[in-house]
């Protein structure tokens, strides 16, 4: 494992396409990123930008057909995931890479007791006996802060509230002490107060267990306090990639700037109308030849509409997919300096 250099997951040029009646949908079109051990990566984007598909691809959970990983490398802890047989992938799923999904209401099986759903993971991967699995399940429920875990273990999902169900999902995901946790919009379906609790819980458990985390969200507020670095996705492509601090301070992509401007800031903008990026995300089955964001971008030129933009390197850790990445970056830096003065 020494050759992995502390890298837990590296995705290189990943392309996942879906065959539909409307044509080929390039849900993920050339994604590259790297995640170091213990790091938290945020993947941000609007609905349909390919964030979930990227991560389902890592788990090889793309329904096939209609979906297919057509190109790219996925290397998890030195293992080429794409080259594995499905049985070998199953040994990684749930054990070394675990996932939490968006809607805890529908992600737990309504027909099975919580205990059954928790126990089957450890019995499968850790070879637990029934009693060991039950004890472990109880321990996990306590760990994620479910009150009265002993009686709740034998209840069914519908007897839990949304936040409690997401805690159960987290308990299930962390049962086998995975190296990588993928949280796909873990708080989107929850109340705001519960959101904070769940995020705090993930953060706390991550610190305690040393798990690497990929946090998928469309809410920039969520990733701000949680992640080390961020990928901004749009129309199946990486639009910007930077450390969290740098992305928030000096974004180099008009799309990122638009997203940041759309976050409500009651302290400074009270009374002003909240900014929103005009238009809708494009139909990824019929993308124009130029920049996919050109239609909605306030600084788009003819060049943007005709030519696909380059992936510009601002510095070693900061890249942006834009014809004017350097200009946008310079503007951001100038704005930043002005604010600091």
């Amino acid at each position: 494992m020494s050759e992995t250099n502390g890298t837990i997951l590296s995705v290189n040029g990943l392309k996942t396409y879906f065959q539909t009646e409307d044509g080929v949908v390039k849900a993920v079109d050339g994604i590259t990123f790297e995640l170091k051990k213990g790091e938290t990566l945020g993947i941000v984007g609007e609905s349909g930008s390919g964030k979930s598909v990227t991560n389902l691809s890592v788990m090889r959970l793309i329904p096939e057909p209609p979906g297919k990983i057509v190109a790219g490398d996925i290397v998890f802890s030195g293992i080429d995931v794409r080259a594995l047989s499905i049985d070998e992938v199953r040994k990684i799923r749930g054990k070394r890479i675990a996932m939490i999904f968006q809607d805890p209401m529908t992600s737990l099986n309504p027909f099975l007791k919580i205990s059954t759903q928790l126990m089957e993971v450890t019995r499968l991967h850790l070879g637990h006996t029934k009693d060991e699995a039950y004890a472990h399940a109880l321990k996990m429920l306590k760990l994620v802060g479910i009150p009265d875990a002993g009686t709740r273990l034998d209840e069914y999902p519908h007897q839990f509230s949304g936040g409690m169900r997401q805690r159960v999902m987290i308990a299930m995901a962390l049962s086998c002490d995975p190296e990588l946790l993928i949280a796909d919009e873990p708080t989107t379906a929850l109340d705001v107060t519960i959101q904070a609790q769940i995020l705090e819980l993930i953060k706390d458990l991550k610190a305690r267990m040393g798990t690497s985390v990929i946090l998928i969200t469309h809410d920039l507020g969520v990733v701000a306090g949680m992640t080390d670095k961020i990928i901004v996705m749009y129309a199946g492509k990486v639009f910007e990639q930077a450390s969290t601090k740098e992305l928030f301070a000096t974004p180099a992509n008009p799309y990122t700037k638009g997203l940041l401007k759309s976050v409500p800031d009651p302290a400074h903008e009270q009374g002003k109308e909240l900014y929103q990026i005009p238009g809708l995300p494009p139909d990824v089955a019929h993308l124009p030849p130029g920049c996919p964001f050109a239609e909605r971008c306030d600084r788009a030129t003819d060049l943007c509409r005709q030519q696909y933009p380059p992936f510009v390197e601002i510095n070693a850790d900061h890249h942006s997919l834009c014809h004017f990445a350097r200009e946008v970056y310079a503007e951001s830096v100038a704005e930043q300096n002005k604010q600091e003065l």
Partner: protein
Amino acid sequence: MIIPMALLVITLTWALVRIAPGNFYTQEKKLPPAVEENIKKKYGLDKPWYQQYGIMMWNVVRGDFGSSLKYEGQTVNEIIWRHFPYSATIGILAYVLALLIGLTAGVIASLKQNSIFDYGSTSLAMLGLSVPNFVLGPLLVLVFSFWLYWLPPARWSLAGLVLPVVTLAAIYAAYIARLTRAGMLEVMRSDYIRTARAKGLDEKTVLLRHGLRGGIIPVVSFTGPALAALLAGTVVVEKVFAIPGLGNIFIQSVLNRDEPLVLGIVAFLSILIMVFNLLVDISYGFLDPRIRYE
């Protein structure tokens, strides 16, 4: 709930039999008035209708449907119990066969959606649904009894049961296969199946432990009333294969205007259907914890 419902059904049946023109003693030739008078007296038909209804209801509540008017000396209960086992035997066999074929075909079709097997079994199911059993029955007899000489066209024996059971099961198997396929397709797309796969479970476990229960709920709602209908006997299949079942007797009793027998069979069938619906409701509770009583 069952008892008032059954009494209501009996009342309506009684009213319908009474409202319908004609009666059990009418022949082609008109009876002399004196004879008609005597018959009416003997069967209590000279009393006002509410009194007749009261007597009928009182007997029904005690479980006594009286004697058949056509088959004299035989009580309705005797007749029902003599003929019901025939209907029940082919009914239960057809039910088991339909479930076996329907569930298996449905599950496999849903797993291999849009494969040759899927198209094959859905077309076959469509065929099974569209061919009425008065066509299928004689057709099977023609092929397997008269051309191939494999099976008897009608005899109460194990070999003789094959054709009626298959005829009876075909439409149910087809329907169950379609319900299962649709139910499974729906469930296997759901989020919790994705969760199960993300846990590293193999497809067999995902299907059997996580998918099947939700997938067959629509089948369960169908199979309760279906079993009752199968047990009650089906007139067509019993006619085609000359089986002395309840369905056959029921039609005869209606044609004979044999009021006690009609009422007895209707009461029996309605209770049967309601009991099976109750069983379905109870089994929902086992399948789906969300509708279990607290």
